[in-house]
């Protein structure tokens, strides 16, 4: 079984996934649709059986068999809201960071495309979004991950919180790489990555000025940039960054003070 975008199951599932998201209310409510022709009802029952087989295979760690069962469930009942996700989950479990084979790459593309299809109908769904990010990270596709996060961060259709969160995640990845480059003595690359992270955080804070997580990460990133400048002996750059840090601290303090409320008692 090949896992390319042209796979027959995927071709069948894709156009119907969106329909599924809007047409499945009755199924979600647990009742069969009225007036469903017997053939469709039969098909839905067979799909459920396939999904149950997929669940058993998933629990047993046989993700290939699970993906195949969930794939058959999708083919039998394309309107079901969960079968496509389950197939993506099972395929996602098969992706191996160290496997550079075309099959692995094709699986990754297939899974990401399923999630993207789902996200197009439910763009704020963090289960799907985080799954894509995790898969790209798992596959070691750093460039793909960054591009994906950036795309999400700049997608004006999405709520502000989700956009800033994606930009923060992108900045975080860059900062992690910057720290590693710095440890390995590649200060120029480290400085460039840390500066890129700061730009992303500035962008995120433009979208969500009150995001404490973004403020905290920006402070952390600036401290790293200052450390890099110090190690490079770049005094002017260091002074410039220290001024930025002071300003970033004031901005963060302003947010904290504005949000300060009396301590909530949640003691038992």
């Amino acid at each position, binding site marked *: 079984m090949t896992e390319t975008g042209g796979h027959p199951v995927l071709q069948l599932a894709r156009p119907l996934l969106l329909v599924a998201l809007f047409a499945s209310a009755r199924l979600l409510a647990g009742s069969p649709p009225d007036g469903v022709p017997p053939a469709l009802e039969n098909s839905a029952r067979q799909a459920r059986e396939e999904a149950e087989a997929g669940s058993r295979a998933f629990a047993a760690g046989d993700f290939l068999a699970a993906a195949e069962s969930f794939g058959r469930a999708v083919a039998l009942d394309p309107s079901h*809201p969960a079968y496509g*996700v389950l197939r993506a989950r099972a395929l996602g479990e098969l992706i191996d960071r160290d496997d550079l084979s075309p099959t692995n790459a094709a699986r990754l593309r297939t899974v990401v495309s399923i999630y993207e299809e789902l996200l197009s109908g439910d763009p704020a769904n963090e*289960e799907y979004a985080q799954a894509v990010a995790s898969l790209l990270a798992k596959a070691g596709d750093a460039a793909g991950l960054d591009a994906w996060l950036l795309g999400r961060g700049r997608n004006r259709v999405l709520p502000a919180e989700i956009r800033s969160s994606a930009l923060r995640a992108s900045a975080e990845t860059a900062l992690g790489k910057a720290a590693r480059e710095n440890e390995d003595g590649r200060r120029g690359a480290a400085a460039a990555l840390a500066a890129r992270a700061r730009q992303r955080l500035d962008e995120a804070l433009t979208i969500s000025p009150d995001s404490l997580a973004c403020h*905290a990460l920006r402070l952390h990133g600036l401290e790293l940039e200052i450390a890099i400048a110090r190690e490079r002996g770049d005094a002017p750059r260091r002074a410039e960054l220290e001024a930025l840090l002071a300003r970033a601290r004031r901005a963060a303090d302003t947010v904290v003070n504005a*949000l300060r409320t009396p301590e909530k008692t949640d003691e*038992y």
Partner: protein
Amino acid sequence: MSKLSRRDLLSLGGCAALGLFARSATASRLSLMTALAEPLAPTDYRALVAVFLAGGNDSNNMVVPVTGYSAYSAARAAAGLAIPQAQLLSITPPAMAGSVFGLHPELAELHGLWGQGKAAVVCNAGTLVEPLASRADYLNAARKKPYQLFSHSDQQGIWQTSRADTRVQTGWGGRIADALACVNGGVAFPMPVSVAGINLFAQGVSTRPLAVPDSGTALNNVFVLSGFNSSAESIARRASFDAIRGQDASLPLVKSSSDVMQQAIDIGALFASDPVLSPDRFTGLSTSIARQLKQAAKLIRLNRDSAGLGLNRQIFFVQQGGYDTHQNQIGDQVALYDALSQALNAFTLTMGDLGYGDRVTAFTLSDFGRTLQPSGSGASTVGSDHAWGSHQLVVGGAVNGGNFYGVNGPNGSIFPSLAMGNVAGTSDTDTRGRWIPNVAVDQYAATLAKWFGVSTANMATVFPNLHRFASQDLGFMNLAGITTPGCQ
């Protein structure tokens, strides 16, 4: 909502000052401890973090069936206790064969962790002496049931001891520490640490837990022997104090008291500085649970970086109160879940920062679940009453996340039927939606203990009732590459 304030930003700047007194006064003993400490840095680090949701968490609103939402809605909507379907954060657990569920809308960060495969749900867990497969089993007087069901103090005790048949004075966290004491070499620092005061969970037979305050107190201020300074007079007075503590060591009570004092002094020496978390993921989080988890994170960092520590295993106990929601549940759960979700997310991110993303596992415990049938009605008064089985969260990089785990109940599913009363497939004890647990605390805890490295041979000592249950590993932990220390 409590995403608010924070003095933590102030701590981003640098380390707190070192405790000069602690360093000078105990230098010789510290060097002895350091010599005994082997290895000096963790080589096979793992930590368990118990998050006790005190009061009895109504997990009926934490994990809600979307497929079959009508049963949930029928039970709770009229009284104003149902979470609207549109607000639920959708999840699709592979174990549920296509059924869709939703997390409470305030669990947004945990929903993200679910998507990353770092959070799982263990369904319908609770206190059990032996398996009870059905309502008939529960009503059968010959079948063993936990003592004092629905009572806070008793059920809290059972969740912490895993002994539903009798009261004991040790908790399963403490007994795990007893079993794995050898793994930490000679380091004279307790494996279990409570950031929520004295509790049963962390008490072992030979293990005494350390209790520390939350991150509102810097670690270098936790064990400070007051009344001394660096003046010559003070140093002489301190020398006399130490000499006096060494006398009458043949008297057990005096020796015991002196040993406790010495242990506090030794630990105070290890807490010579207050570790800084950078980035500080807890920035802006002011709740008690966030402060507790932050302190646990700081202790984990201290253990990783301190030459005098280097423990390979640590166990933490934190607690979030306020879950006894007989009234005003909707509003209270918003605040509670918001605080829990943010704090657990900050903790998980911090563990990633420390390189321990898949080395630390946090998990919830709670007295009991709550009745599906509401008590009272109207937004400000509606709540729920004490019940039994409830869903638990497990969070961390070693979790086989994004899925439900459990044991099939009378409805043939790991997730309980929401049918109340005496109807087919229900696991209700009466008519109010009190679910008979499918999963025993012992099974839940044993799954964590296995990942933590407790040997099969020691499982019976740590969990004496475990043998009564068919499944001793629920499968929610990733055991790939996990070794069981041979020194047990």
